[in-house]
């Protein structure tokens, strides 16, 4: 009964989404206030029914209702309750329902805050969100209904894919989805601006939190996914340029560009059509990500639905939504005129460089990801593009971007006197260059050009991001920083930490595969490993062989590590559960491979210096974003007159301004 109830709620949500898609847009076009007024209640109703459907599915999982096909395929009575709940989004159908629910939540938030905006504008925004929502709900109901019943319910379920039985799994997909789906909001804002034919600074101020918000979730979601792959996929890499990883990374790159271009649009009224284009691109790429993941065209851990009909439906939806927006852009972009100009050495120039380089990086990743799909579809054979392509293509635009970032943070709007920048940044540059060359050589004994470059740039960003905050904290340097400015410096500090972690881990990672017998001792990355032996372990829904390893440094015991080789009972699939001893300065990683006959086992050990900075950097970036979103000016109603006048003060008088 409950699943039918959920199904019914989903149909009602679709009806409301259709109402929300059609009436407010038509109302805004004809100036009919009654029709426009329907947008908000429709959004609220849609949220209620999506949440009801979601709750119904969660209930089916928690009560082991295996008559529901989706539950039977993805759950099991022995599965811990925690994972039963997470299994709601652990498969294709449930994750789509989750997509819709998240969109309903975002829409509700937009409807709530939109009351401060002109009715015509907020109606258009909600109308566009309604179109997106209706498309996805229709897709769910027609091709992937999570509430489908089985004619005969099995006694027990097929269990959740063992890979997904992990605490990070409970968080990674929701974070990513909240980010993905949230990008629908700036998309809707962009289309609404195009429909209105004008783009004001107020528009940019309204839009900015709706870019930074999803961006925060995307950042955390991608970092969590990377962390999960690092310890759960078993072999200690943290980024594989897997097409689905790329699918989440491309929207992130474009959203990052959009965030920066919006800063210019808000402060200076420039880059307007570019901003619109980025907003359309960011959401189209998240939609493309959904297509890539769901269509089964990709070979990947993530690609659990291999159904061409589904892929085609999403592709058509993508063509409709993005194509429609782009057509509108082509027709209306000429109306968006810039409000002024700027000089070469100005904040605007640096943000322009940021935008160009991020877009190039996103385009390179896109090319490498979909080119093999095109070739295959056209019958030119099956190829794949290796990680070296992505590494090269990503580094080429990223290195100048990172180097320019240090200056850009300190450049003022319109025009910056050269000597001010030079005075401020001379010593950080010298410090970063010297430390980057000397420190790795002292600590690790070897170095290379790329490593030096990476470390110098990372230190450069860290130091330049700290200049202003430190000056304020010790009580020197004029006016206090606004929260948005704090956000900018903190987020960029995170970028610096991330680059440092990525460079050092990649350059000085010690990896050794070893055939080990009990009692044997060997050395890797400055640590001595002793294989003590193995024993059998019983888990709630798996059995495992657990190896025991003693890790010593200079003869002193550091830790005892117990990696497992598990076999999950229901699906009978083997899983490596690596053991990781994490510390700020290094991770020690031990994974148990296969039995090699007798007592011997294949073992992989890795010592990864500074890898913690990868996740720490991402968290710091996200925290910077949070500071930015919570800045007062996004909470207040339309900007008071005084603030606008203040924004016109000549740039030289204000060396640091908010991003």
């Amino acid at each position, binding site marked *: 009964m409950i699943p039918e109830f959920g199904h019914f709620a989903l149909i009602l949500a679709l009806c409301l989404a259709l109402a929300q898609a059609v009436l407010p847009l038509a109302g805004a076009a004809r100036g009919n206030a009654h029709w426009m007024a329907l947008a908000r209640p429709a959004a609220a109703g849609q949220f209620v029914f999506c949440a009801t459907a979601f709750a119904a599915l969660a209930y089916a999982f928690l009560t082991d209702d295996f008559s529901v096909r989706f539950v039977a395929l993805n759950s099991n009575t022995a599965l811990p309750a925690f994972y039963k709940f997470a299994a709601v989004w652990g498969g294709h159908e449930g994750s789509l329902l989750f997509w819709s629910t998240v969109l309903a939540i975002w829409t509700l938030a937009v409807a709530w805050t939109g009351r401060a905006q002109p009715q015509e504008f907020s109606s258009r925004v909600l109308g566009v969100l309604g179109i997106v929502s209706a498309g996805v709900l229709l897709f769910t109901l027609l091709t992937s209904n999570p509430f489908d019943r089985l004619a005969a319910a099995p006694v027990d379920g097929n269990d959740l*894919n063992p890979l997904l039985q992990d605490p990070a799994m409970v968080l990674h997909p929701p974070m990513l989805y909240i980010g993905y789906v949230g990008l629908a909001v700036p998309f809707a804002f962009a289309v609404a601006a195009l429909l209105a034919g004008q783009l004001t600074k107020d528009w940019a101020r309204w839009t900015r939190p709706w870019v930074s918000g999803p961006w925060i979730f995307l950042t955390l979601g991608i970092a969590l996914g990377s962390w999960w792959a690092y310890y759960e996929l078993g072999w200690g890499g943290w980024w594989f340029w897997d097409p689905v990883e790329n699918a989440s990374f491309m929207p992130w790159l474009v959203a990052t560009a959009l965030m920066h271009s919006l800063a210019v649009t808000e402060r200076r009224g420039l880059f307007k059509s570019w901003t619109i284009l980025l907003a359309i691109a960011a959401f189209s790429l998240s939609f493309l990500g959904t297509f890539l993941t769901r269509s089964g065209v990709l070979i990947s851990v993530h690609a659990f639905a291999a159904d061409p009909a589904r892929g085609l439906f999403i592709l058509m939806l993508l063509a409709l939504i993005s194509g429609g927006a782009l057509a509108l852009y082509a027709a209306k972009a000429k109306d968006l005129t810039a409000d002024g100009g700027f000089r070469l050495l100005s904040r605007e120039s640096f943000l322009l460089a940021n935008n160009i380089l991020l877009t190039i990086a996103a385009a390179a990743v896109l090319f490498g990801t979909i080119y093999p799909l095109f070739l295959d579809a056209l019958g030119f054979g099956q190829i794949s593009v290796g990680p*070296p392509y992505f590494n090269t293509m990503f580094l080429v635009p990223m290195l100048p971007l990172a180097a320019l970032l240090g200056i850009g943070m300190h450049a003022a709007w319109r025009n910056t006197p050269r000597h001010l920048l030079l005075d401020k940044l001379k010593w950080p540059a010298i410090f970063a260059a010297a430390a980057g060359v000397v420190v790795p050589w002292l600590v690790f004994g070897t170095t290379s050009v790329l490593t030096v470059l990476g470390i110098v740039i990372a230190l450069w960003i860290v130091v330049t991001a700290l200049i202003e905050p430190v000056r304020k904290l010790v009580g020197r340097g004029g006016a206090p920083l606004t929260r948005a400015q704090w956000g900018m410096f903190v987020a960029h500090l995170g970028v610096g930490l991330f680059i440092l972690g990525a460079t050092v881990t990649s350059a000085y990672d010690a990896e050794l595969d070893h055939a080990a017998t009990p009692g044997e001792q060997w050395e890797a990355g400055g640590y001595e490993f002793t294989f003590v032996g193995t024993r059998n372990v019983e888990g709630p829904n798996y059995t495992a062989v657990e190896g025991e390893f003693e890790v010593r440094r200079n003869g002193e015991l550091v830790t005892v590590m117990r990696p497992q080789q598990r076999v999950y009972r229901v699906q009978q699939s083997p899983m490596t559960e690596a053991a990781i001893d994490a510390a700020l300065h290094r991770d020690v990683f031990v994974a148990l491979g296969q039995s090699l006959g007798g007592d011997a086992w*294949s073992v*992989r050990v890795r010592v990864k210096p500074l890898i913690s900075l990868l996740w720490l950097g991402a968290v710091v970036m996200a925290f910077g974003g949070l500071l930015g979103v919570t800045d007062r000016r996004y909470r207040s109603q339309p900007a008071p007159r005084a603030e606008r006048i203040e924004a016109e003060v000549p740039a030289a008088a204000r060396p640091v301004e908010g991003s």
Partner: protein
Amino acid sequence: MTPRRRRMLLIGSVLLGVVVSAGLALRAFEQNLLYFFSPSEVAAGEVPSERAFRLGGMVLDGSVEREAGSLTVSFVVTDYAHQIPVTYTGVLPDLFQEGQGVVARGRLDPSGHFAAEEVLAKHDENYMPPEVAEAVARGREAQGQ
């Protein structure tokens, strides 16, 4: 400099950047393209020598052999029409099993041995990489004729 010249300079340097990066992209792309071949295609000599490629098929039952106490393993990849011997040194993925689909990246040596640098088996026991499924289907077809 006049604003006009400055703008031309800016546009020029952006264009130059785009051209250089596009060139680099294509070069990196060309060098990192990996083609996929089935055992029958390898046996027919369609594979360029000197170049890494991906070999996919099924691990032949009873073909996995290990050197005692070493990480080196050898096995045979088949599409049920032709067979290619493969050697690999390292830790194999969890789902590597006889009778299961596998994709190996590596090079063919002159004697017809495939030396794998990486071995991939998929993360679901019911799932076969589409390329492997296709290669095996073609192999079976060729066998039937």
